[in-house]
């Protein structure tokens, strides 16, 4: 259990190129931080700097207030789960998990090792596989062995380097929720690298978005989504991603390629003086004008557009509008797409419509857009002109409170599950807890030692 402080960290390789450039993050004790960004943004390098596998060129790395820049990985007491598992193929699952304990010579007796490994295996449902070799395990099982190796020792923090990217989609979802629950139960500080924004949004207490080695924004997933600091963050977070429309502002009217939009006075004020802005509209801000309730209608603006085609998905449908921006705007949009690892596509607006909407491609139809939520970005700097920093900070504060509550609940549930083992089954809830106890009992014990140490 520890806090980790990154203080203006810089990593330069031999050619002087900064892979990580001046990144400062304070990671609180027990916090789950996600590092996310397109490939080559330096997120893995940053993680490896924390664990000590990469040297730090400049800046300080503090664990619990102690500077650890010059400490070897083994002296930092961190546990890491690698993308490709990195299991020792000549050892059984049991010995793989016991490996860190055996290295700490003399610290653990044979019984203690046995107890810790058995507990970790029980947590990860590996008990039946303890005597097998990694080569005979499935991908998900190997992944769990790698996690077992991390949780068996009382590490100060867990570091994950894209741990799920080698699993298939279904297993990924399963492991994601397991990691999340395990982190809450153990309450251990975690740093998790991923390029998958679903993982970033669902797992993280706070998400750090990186681009080309620079930290763009670090905030709770909701703040990132609702109050992005710049174009990059806005475009990177969310799927389908935010639409960017070049527009000119005249009073409170935005003239865009898909039509004129009336925007609220206070938003227009913030962008006053800018000739050209980029309007960021999330697909779900749009709606079929016919289906908008009358109470909501005044909060938005209605325009006519022709959809090229629609995709009906059952719960909602996507519609697509093509538009033709001015050449200099096209370059800007292409550059943005490149930054995000996407292909340079024809400029297109994606709109999410209610599943019952009868709008189809080819016909001109009335669309409504919620102008309260849209953001205006500076076309040159990419800065969000309409960002409400206070609202954003409030969202992140909320997330922090929720996290504290979740950890408390999870640990309380564990304690209850422990005592529940003595047979105080009180009704349906009691039954549930006991079922849970079978699954989490091991982690509780491990978690207990964590708390003690």
């Amino acid at each position, binding site marked *: 259990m520890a806090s980790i402080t990154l203080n203006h960290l810089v990593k330069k390789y031999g050619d002087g190129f900064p892979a990580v450039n001046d990144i400062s993050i304070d990671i609180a004790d027990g916090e789950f931080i996600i590092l996310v960004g397109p490939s080559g943004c330096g997120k893995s390098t940053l993680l490896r700097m924390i664990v000590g596998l990469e040297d730090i060129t400049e800046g300080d790395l503090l664990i619990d207030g102690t500077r650890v820049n010059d400490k070897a990985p083994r002296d930092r007491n961190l546990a890491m789960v690698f993308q490709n598992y*990195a299991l020792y193929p000549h050892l059984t699952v049991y010995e793989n998990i016991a*490996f860190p304990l055996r290295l700490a010579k003399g610290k653990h007796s044979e019984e203690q090792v046995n107890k810790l490994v058995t507990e970790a295996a029980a947590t990860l449902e590996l008990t039946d596989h303890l005597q097998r070799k990694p080569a005979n395990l499935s991908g998900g099982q190997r992944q769990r062995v790698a996690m077992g190796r991390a949780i068996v*020792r009382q590490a100060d923090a867990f570091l994950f380097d894209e741990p799920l990217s080698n699993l298939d989609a279904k297993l990924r979802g399963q492991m994601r929720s397991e990691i999340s629950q395990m982190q809450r139960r153990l309450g251990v500080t975690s740093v998790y690298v991923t390029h998958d924004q679903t993982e970033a949004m669902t797992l993280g207490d706070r998400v750090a978005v990186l681009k080309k080695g620079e930290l763009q924004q670090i905030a709770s997933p909701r703040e990132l989504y609702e109050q992005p600091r710049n174009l990059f963050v806005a475009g990177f977070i969310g799927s389908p991603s935010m639409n960017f429309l070049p527009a000119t502002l005249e009073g409170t009217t935005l003239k865009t390629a898909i039509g004129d939009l009336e925007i609220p006075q206070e938003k227009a004020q913030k962008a006053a003086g800018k000739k050209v802005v980029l309007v960021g509209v999330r697909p779900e801000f749009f709606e079929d004008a016919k289906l908008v309730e009358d109470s909501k209608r005044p909060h938005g603006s209605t325009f006519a557009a022709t959809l090229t085609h629609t995709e009906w998905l059952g719960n909602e449908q996507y519609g697509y509008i093509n538009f033709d921006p001015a050449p200099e705007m096209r370059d800007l949009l292409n550059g943005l797409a490149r930054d995000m690892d996407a292909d340079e596509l024809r400029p297109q607006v994606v709109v999410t419509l209610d599943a019952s909407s009868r709008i189809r491609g080819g016909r001109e139809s009335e669309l409504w857009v919620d102008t309260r939520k849209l953001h205006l970005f500076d076309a040159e700097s990419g800065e969000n002109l309409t960002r409400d920093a206070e609202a954003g900070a409030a969202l992140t504060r909320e997330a922090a409170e929720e996290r504290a509550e979740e950890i408390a609940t999870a640990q309380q549930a564990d304690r209850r599950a422990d005592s529940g083992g003595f047979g105080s089954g009180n009704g349906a809830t009691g039954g549930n807890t006991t079922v849970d106890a079978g699954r989490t009992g091991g982690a509780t014990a491990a978690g207990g030692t964590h708390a003690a140490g």
Partner: protein
Amino acid sequence: MTNTSTKGKVLWAIVSVLVVVYALFPVASILATSFKTPSDLTSGKFLPSSGTATTSNYEQILVGDAQGLFLSALRNSVGIALIATFIAVVLATLCAYAIARLDFPGKKVILTTALAVSIFPVISIVTPLFNLWRTIGLYDTWLGLIIPYLSLTLPISIWTLAAFFRQIPWELEQAAQVDGATTWQAFRKAIVPLAAPGVFTTAIIAFFIAWNDFVYGISLTSTEAARPVPAALAFFTGASQFEAPTGAISAAGIIVTIPVVLLVLLFQRQIVSGLTSGAVKG
């Protein structure tokens, strides 16, 4: 489909048999010759004439006249080859590991030098070595042979092992380091067990090179103190000056083949590939 695969199998079987016969016929011939009496050597038949098969050749080199010459040579060969192999493998393991893992200036130079040394003609070094060894007193000693053997075995060992180490995922070592291992522990506990098949393969190759050498063996020794088997064979004489020692040489040839065969059989199980499977996703 099954038709072609059956055909393919038959074809492979025929080719394999041909290769085996081609490779093993000389060995079989020597084996047969080693049981022939001196008078039977020129019979022109593959097998000894019926009723004349004898073990006298073996007796001669193991307990008879040539005993002193052969047994001391055998002792020299085994000792020198084992020591040279051991040193070569230990040095090459460390060197190859550094080459595979670290980025240091002069890495290319080491590899090219190793390659250059291994392709340097042995015969051109022998004469200078002969003079040098005599001056500094290494002539006709075990060490005097072990050093040149190292120059033969080290380059190839470094190259084979470096290729082997490159296949072992880096992450294993890093994982071990994060798990609390020192660099040395990570090497010993995570890398060496995986590299074992490569080390054994290299050891066998190195041993064969040292075991089979003739040029150094005959040039840098003069007595039984250090003369290895291949060189000693050249000093065999027949029972009388009118008899060729062919039978005895054949018998000695068979005996020196045995350790080689034994080695391969013993380590066959170690030289299995695919031991690294399961380490990483792949």
